[in-house]
């Protein structure tokens, strides 16, 4: 996976497949040590302890189209190769939270990538799921909550092209600010 925004898109697809109605994505700069932390938290079906203990192995999947699951092992490997950490917690019926950090100055640290395109892609395919995206840097906090946008839109779907375009530009502006 080329960059972190693609990992975030991929990990969020797991949440969607688990039936999540609320997905919370956070990207945080941590100054000491110099880490970038990403987390994806959902209220989907969760995993039992047995599956959870095996899920970072590249052979675990509940898909029926093939026998390997790659998303989680790839993220864990990328984090650890850059001197960061990986953690996953999950509870059946409650949801799942994945946190991965990356050593920012490490040569194996993937770039952040186009996070606006990831968020827009998620909303395009899932206009009825609530996504909250938060970006925390030393300059401050930026957040976008599709529940708030839906209230403004009063029934106009979040995945109308004009709305998606607005969201993309809004996110890109914020990115330039913080």
């Amino acid at each position, binding site marked *: 996976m080329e960059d972190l925004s693609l990992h975030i*898109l991929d990990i969020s697809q797991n949440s969607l497949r688990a039936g999540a109605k609320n997905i919370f994505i956070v990207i945080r700069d941590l100054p000491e040590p110099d880490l970038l932390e990403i987390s994806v938290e959902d209220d989907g079906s969760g995993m039992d302890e047995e599956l959870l203990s095996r899920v970072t192995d590249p052979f675990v999947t509940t898909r029926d189209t093939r026998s390997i699951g790659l998303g989680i092992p*790839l993220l864990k490997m990328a984090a650890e190769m850059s001197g960061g950490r990986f953690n996953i917690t999950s509870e059946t019926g409650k949801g799942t939270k994945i946190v991965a950090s990356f050593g920012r100055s490490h040569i194996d640290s993937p770039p952040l990538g186009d996070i606006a395109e990831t968020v827009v*892609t998620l909303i*395009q395919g899932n206009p009825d799921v609530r996504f909250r995206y938060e970006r925390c840097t030393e300059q401050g906090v930026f957040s976008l909550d599709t529940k708030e946008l839906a209230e403004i839109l*009063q029934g106009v779907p979040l995945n109308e092209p004009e709305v998606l375009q607005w969201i993309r530009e809004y996110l890109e502006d914020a990115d330039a600010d913080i």
Partner: protein
Amino acid sequence: MKKSIEELNAIRERMQQNIQVRTENADNTRVVVGMATCGIAAGARPVLTAIVDEVNRRKLKNVTVTQTGCIGVCRLEPIVEIYEPGKEKVTYVNMDENKARQVVSEHLVNQRVVDEYTIGAAK
């Protein structure tokens, strides 16, 4: 100029005025992009973005663009499937942004399947 919430309000008002709410009906053509790990790693995100953009730019009505999980053939990702009412499904493989735009203009606008990008040609 910075994007503001007022602008989003304006978009809403505009959309509510010309209520031609796109309904999901059975006559719609469905374009489905595979968005599991293999697809994403191979470039499915820019393919989806290109299709959404092209459909919108050409103001194609009765076309819905959706995403799905794993279509099952990792080495052929990104994969795009087109379902048209009364026709057989067409599966495009090894897509990229340019091929995707071409598929919209040829297949969806001109009604000509782009044979060289289909799964049949790849096998």
